[in-house]
């Protein structure tokens, strides 16, 4: 096994999974350890947990707020995310349960393959948008461009592996299973496959330290996950502190004549 196959196929494979999992947990913890002092839900404010779940579901599945905000971005963003989902599912079936395609139908196997092109197209749209629209360009930093470039490289390489490289899916399957069972064997030595895998590993290591964590963050946003029930039940602010105000007695002393006149009915 060459150095490349060893590093990318085995060493980084384990490191990236560990960093991803521990990183996500750690980031979740950095957010969760900060208290939520007050109720700040935004309309529509459901008063039940079921309502809150339904509201979050509309955000997760159809990006409801984004649809209202920017329809062109919604198209690029939503298609990207849907294809991300289908691609991940297809990878799992393809690599780990390949025979399932027989039951699902090879038509779907082909279709998912071709959506890889649309996937790259959606990413290209997002990159162009970030460069061309002045307001988006102004707020973009290096990391915003790099993540998009990383993603489109992964998708294009993936398309290449799928359509041109001739890598045998059975070999990939055996390799991935070997990693899972902690008895790693040599990965396919195709350079495009290895590059695809390397970029995915870089992505996995990067995710916990990046804005990609929005997939967890959205559920923690009090504006979206709180019930609109602040007048109905007690919400405690753990860092609340007492304040002193002018008492009635002090106020009475200050405005004695006027208040007495009011008491007399004047």
């Amino acid at each position, binding site marked *: 096994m060459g150095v490349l196959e060893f590093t990318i196929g085995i060493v980084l494979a384990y490191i990236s999974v560990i960093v991803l999992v521990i990183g996500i947990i750690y980031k979740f913890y950095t957010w969760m350890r*900060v208290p939520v002092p*007050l109720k700040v839900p935004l309309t529509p404010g459901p008063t039940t947990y079921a309502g809150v779940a339904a509201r979050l579901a509309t955000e997760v599945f159809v990006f409801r707020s984004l649809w*209202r905000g920017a329809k062109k971005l919604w198209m690029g963003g939503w298609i990207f995310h849907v294809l991300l989902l289908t691609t991940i599912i297809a990878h799992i079936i393809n690599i780990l349960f390949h025979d399932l395609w027989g039951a699902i139908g090879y038509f779907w196997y082909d279709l998912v393959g071709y959506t890889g092109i649309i996937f790259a197209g959606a990413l290209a749209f997002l990159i162009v948008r970030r460069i061309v629209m002045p307001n988006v360009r102004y707020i973009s930093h290096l990391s915003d461009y790099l993540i998009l470039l990383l993603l489109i490289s992964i998708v294009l390489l993936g398309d290449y592996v799928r359509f041109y490289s001739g890598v045998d899916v059975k070999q990939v399957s055996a390799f991935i299973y070997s990693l899972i069972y902690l008895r790693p064997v040599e990965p396919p030595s195709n350079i495009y496959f290895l590059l695809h895998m390397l970029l995915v590993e870089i992505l996995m290591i990067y995710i916990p330290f990046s804005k990609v964590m929005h997939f967890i963050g959205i559920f923690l946003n009090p504006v979206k996950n709180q019930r609109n029930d602040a007048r109905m*039940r*007690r919400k405690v602010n753990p860092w609340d502190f007492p304040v002193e105000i002018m008492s009635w007695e002090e106020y009475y002393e200050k405005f004695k004549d006027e208040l007495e006149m009011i*008491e007399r009915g004047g």
Partner: protein
Amino acid sequence: MKLDFSRPGEKFRLHASKKSDMELMKLPFPREWSRDDFKLPENWKEIALKKFDEVLKKYRSVRLYMDLCVHCGACSDKCPFFLATNDPYNMPVGRQDLMRAVYRKYYTREGKLLGEKAGARDFDEEMVKLWYTYFYQCSECRRCAVFCPYGIDTAEITIAAREVLTAIGLSPRSTTESIAKCEYIGNHMGIPPAALADACRFMEEEIKEETGIEVKIPINKKGAEILFVPPSADFFGGPHWGTFKGYVKMFHQIGLDYTISTYASEGGNFGLFLNYEHMKKINAKIYKEAKRLGVKWILGGECGHMWRVIHDFMGTMNGPADFLEEPVSPITGTKFKNAVYTKMVHICEFTADLIKHNKLKIDPSKNDQYIVTYHDSCNPARSMGLIDEPRYILKSVCRNYVELDPSVNRERTICCTAGGGLLADETLELRLKAIKPKMEAIKRTGANFLAMICAIDKASFDTYVRHYKLPIKVGGVHELVGNALVF
């Protein structure tokens, strides 16, 4: 979309607090300073960074939003202040990035290593100036949060930034002047008890002249069933006066056993614009007075910021109110289950309930001269969800009701742009530009009466309709209720 990088927002920077108000309110570093020369204390940076660290550990929303924004730009054209100035710091994301830049510099490896390339900036004097300018150019209306895919709420970040600014002695006069009056006289307008009683007597005379009915407005009455707290502006003329008249006439017709209070004569809360401490202080009076007077529960008037504080924060900050009872309407028997903890009910909830149970004798034809449209104020609409009740009332008390364009109303409402401490002379030009899309929508309805349930809205829209030369009367929902009552 054009961006104007010449910082057009800078000329709308709010004027500095007066030294006397700062001393009265016991704010840090009371001194003579101006909006162009901050005269910051020697160790301001240390204090600011310490306070920044504190807010990052106190507000999960702020901590989360530092990391959550994906810079998609969907929010950018949603803020009326951006639309008015094209100033990139007025884009919600641009405004948030002023805080994010400091966060990145001091809290992320990326920021410490790569600096500006990673969007990190030092918290230097230039940055402080930008924070003061632009975090007081956000009215905390939360419109941006409606359109952000994750619901990132710039108002939360503005509130946190203002905690930091207040800690180093930077706060605007528009806010502190009113807070000082509220904390030491009883209300934001600075009206002492005798003047308040005079206003009530004047109202009683006016109602007698117009309708022949003798009403008595109870003031500081112990043992009344309900404490009524409107915004103090309602006592003082202009577009608010009709609302006050409406309340009084309605309470008289249903024989409500209520009282107003001079000590708690302010429902509004300018403390919300400054920091947690003063927001809590101003609101504390309401419960204190309710306890002193021995009332059963509290009714609140038509006021926007008041209801943000009462609906979302009062229970947490000033509760529990064990000395009060769960609110039940003495006229209809309706239990206000949505307010059983805070025990404070919105007048529109109360009135809509009365109308629903046919307890008000109204003749909608008495409002026939008006074509009425309703403007949703940001706090009742976005933070309470009080969107249907005012409309139900309006449709019951007038016969010509037109709905405003929902893309700038309801939960997407473009607010009066004078909230969050921005109601000041120095921002008039900004606000007149920012309100343009709303004024155009209002004009399209062909209405001649613009109804709303917020005191600052009434004050600002009254100005706007004059500047935009629209023949529209601005008033409260309860003004129309008052007009329609038959005795």
